[in-house]
C-alpha cells in the first residue's frame, strides 16, 4: 500500500511538473528560448491566489481565475518588454535576459511580500475532509492529488486539440517551424508569440496554485526549483513535444518521490538528475523528441 500511495503522490507531483513543462515546451517550440523566468511566474500565480483569498477574502474559484489572468498579463508584458527586442539576438543573450527577468520577479516578490513563508490556504476541502479513504483507511488519496492529475490530463488534451485543430494552433506550429515563411503566409508572428507566452503563463498560474495546495509554503523562491525540475522534465520527454512534457513530468515526479521514500531524502534530487543524464545518453533528444539530422 505504501508503494501505491507513493506512486499516487509521485504522479501528482509529476503532473504539476508536467503542467509547468508544457508551458516551457510551448514557449521553447515557438520562441526557441529557454524561459528561465517561467518558474517565477508560478510563484507570482501562487501569491496572487494567496492574496485574493487571505487578504480580500475571495472564494477560491475567482482567486484562481485572478491568478491566471494576472499571470497571463504578466507573461505578455514580459515578452513585449524584455524578449521582443531580442527576437534576432543570439540565443544566449535571450537566456541571460530571461535570467534577469527571473531575478526581477523574485526580488519584486521579496519587496512586496517579504521573505517569511506564507502558509497557503487549503482549497480542496469538501465537507470537512481533504482526502478519500480507500481500502478501509489503508490508502488515502488527497483531493489535491486527484484534482492535479485530472487538471494535467485535461490541459494536455486541450493543448493537443488546440495546436492540432484551431487556426491559432496551426499558426503556432507554422511559426515554430519557420518564422520567416509563416510571416510571408500572412501569420502575425508577434501576436502568435505573445499568445504562446500568454498560454504558457496561464498554465504556470494553474501549476502555482496546485503546487502551493500540495506543498503549502509560499516564498519568493518557491518557483525556482520546480521551474528547473520542469525544464528538466521538458528535456527529458523531448523538448518541443506536448506528450513528451507530460511523460517527462510524470516520470520525473515518480522517480523523485520514490527516491525520497526508498533511497535518501537528501539525495533524491541527485538521483532524479542522474536518471535524466542516463536517459539523455541513451536517447540524446529525449524520450519523445525528434532527432534532427544536419544536412550535408
Amino acid at each position, binding site marked *: 500500500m505504501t508503494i501505491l500511495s507513493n506512486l499516487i503522490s509521485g504522479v501528482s507531483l509529476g503532473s504539476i511538473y508536467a503542467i509547468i513543462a508544457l508551458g516551457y515546451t510551448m514557449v*521553447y517550440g515557438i520562441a526557441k528560448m*529557454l524561459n528561465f523566468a517561467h518558474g517565477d511566474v508560478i510563484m507570482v500565480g501562487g501569491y496572487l491566489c494567496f492574496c485574493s483569498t487571505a487578504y480580500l477574502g475571495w472564494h477560491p474559484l475567482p482567486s484562481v481565475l485572478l491568478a491566471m489572468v494576472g499571470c497571463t498579463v504578466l507573461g505578455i508584458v514580459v515578452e513585449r518588454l*524584455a524578449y521582443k*527586442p*531580442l527576437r*534576432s*539576438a*543570439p540565443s*544566449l*543573450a535571450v*537566456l*541571460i*535576459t530571461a*535570467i*534577469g*527577468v527571473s*531575478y*526581477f520577479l523574485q*526580488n*519584486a516578490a*521579496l*519587496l512586496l511580500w517579504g521573505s517569511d513563508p506564507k502558509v497557503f490556504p487549503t482549497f480542496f476541502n469538501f465537507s470537512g475532509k481533504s482526502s478519500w479513504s480507500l481500502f478501509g483507511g489503508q490508502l488515502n488519496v488527497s483531493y489535491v492529488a486527484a484534482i492535479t492529475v485530472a487538471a494535467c490530463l485535461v490541459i494536455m488534451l486541450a493543448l493537443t486539440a488546440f495546436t492540432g485543430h484551431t487556426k491559432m494552433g496551426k499558426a503556432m506550429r507554422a511559426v515554430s517551424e519557420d518564422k520567416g515563411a509563416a510571416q510571408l503566409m500572412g501569420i502575425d508572428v508577434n501576436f502568435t508569440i505573445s499568445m504562446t507566452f500568454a498560454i504558457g503563463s496561464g498554465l504556470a498560474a494553474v501549476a502555482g496554485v496546485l503546487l502551493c495546495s500540495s506543498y503549502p509554503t509560499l516564498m519568493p523562491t518557491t518557483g525556482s526549483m520546480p521551474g*528547473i525540475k520542469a*525544464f*528538466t522534465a521538458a*528535456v527529458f520527454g523531448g*523538448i518541443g513535444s506536448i506528450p513528451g512534457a507530460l511523460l517527462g513530468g510524470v516520470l520525473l515526479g515518480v522517480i523523485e518521490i520514490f527516491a525520497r521514500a526508498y533511497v*535518501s531524502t*537528501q*539525495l533524491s*534530487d*541527485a538521483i532524479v*538528475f*542522474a536518471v*535524466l*543524464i542516463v536517459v*539523455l*545518453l541513451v536517447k*540524446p*533528444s*529525449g524520450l519523445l523528441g525528434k532527432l534532427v539530422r*544536419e544536412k*550535408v
Partner: protein
Amino acid sequence: MATKLKRMAPSTRSSFLTYGMVIAAYVVMQAMLSGGLLTSSLKGMLVPICAYVVMAVSLNLTVGIMGELSLGHAGFMSVGAFTAVIAAAALQNTVSNGPLRLVMSMAVGGVFAGLVSLIVVVPVLRLRGDYLAIVTLAFGEIIKNIINCVYVGMDGTGLHFSMKDAASLGMAADGKVLLQGPMGAVGIQKLSTLTAGFLLIMLTLAVVLNFIHSRAGRAVMALRDNRIAAESVGISPTRYKMMAFVTSAVLAGLAGGLYAMNFSSILAKKFDFNTSILILVFVVLGGMGNIRCSIIAAAALTVLPELLRQFADYRMLVYAIVLILVMIFTNNPAYKAFFARFRFRRKTAGKETA
C-alpha cells in the same frame, strides 16, 4: 621576419593588453589596500573577485571558444573548494608555510575538479545545445547534493569519511570535523590573499590565451564553427573538446580552492545553479570568446551590488533591471545600429582633426 611580426601583432597585442590590464588593476588595488582606502566590505571582496574572474575566463573557454552552453560550472568550483579545504587541513602539520600550503591545496582542488570533469565530459561529447545545457545543470546539482551528504573528519590517524553523520566518522577524541554535510566546511584557515588571486588570474590567462592561439585552440574553434567541416579535415571532436573542457574544469577547481580559503566556513549551497548562472552572465555580458571583457564584466558585476547599496532593499531589483537593459541595448539590432552610428561619427571626427 618583419612581416611575421606585423602579422602576429593583432592577437599578441590583444593578449598583452589583457595581461597589462590585470597587472595595473592589481597594482592599484594593492596600493589602495596599503593606503587603507578600501572599505572593509570591498576588502573582503578582493579574493572573491579574483575567483570569479578565473571562473569567467575558464567558462569562456567552454562557452565562447568551444561553443557549448554549460550551466554547471559552479559544480567544478565546488569540487575544487571542498577538496582544497580538506587538503589544506590535512597538510597543516606537514607543510607549515602558509602560501605553499595554499598552492598545494589549490592544486589538489584543481586535480579533483579535473577528475570529476572526466565523467561530465562523456555527455559533453555526445549531446549538443540545450540538451547539453540541461545535463551540465544536472551535474552541478548532483555535485551539490552529494557534497551536502558528505562528512569528513581528521584526527591523529588521518582523514575519515562518512555519508551518514559526524558521529559515524569514528574519530579519536582529538578529531576535528572538516566537512559537516549540509553545514558545509567549517574551521577553514584563511590562506587566500589578493596576491594569490592575482597570480591565479595571470596563470589562467596564460593557459587560456595560449591554448586559444595554439593548434588545439584552433581545432576547438573549428569544431565550434562547423563540426562537419572540421571532421572533414581530420579534426577529432572527442580529443579537442575533452582538452578544452577538462582545462576549463581544472581552472574552475583552482578558483574554488582560492575562494573557499578566503572564508572560515563555506556551504555547498554557495556553488549552486545560481552561481553557475552568475558566471555565465559574466561571460555573455563580456562577450563570448572575449577574454578581456569577461574579466571586466566579472569584476564589475561582483562589485555592482555593493555599489548599489544606497538603493538598500531595491538593490537586487535594480541589478536585475540593469542586467535586462544591458542585454537589450547590446543585442537589439536597432539600438546597436544607433550606437554604432554614434561611434562611427566620433571616429571620423577624430580623424579629421588629426
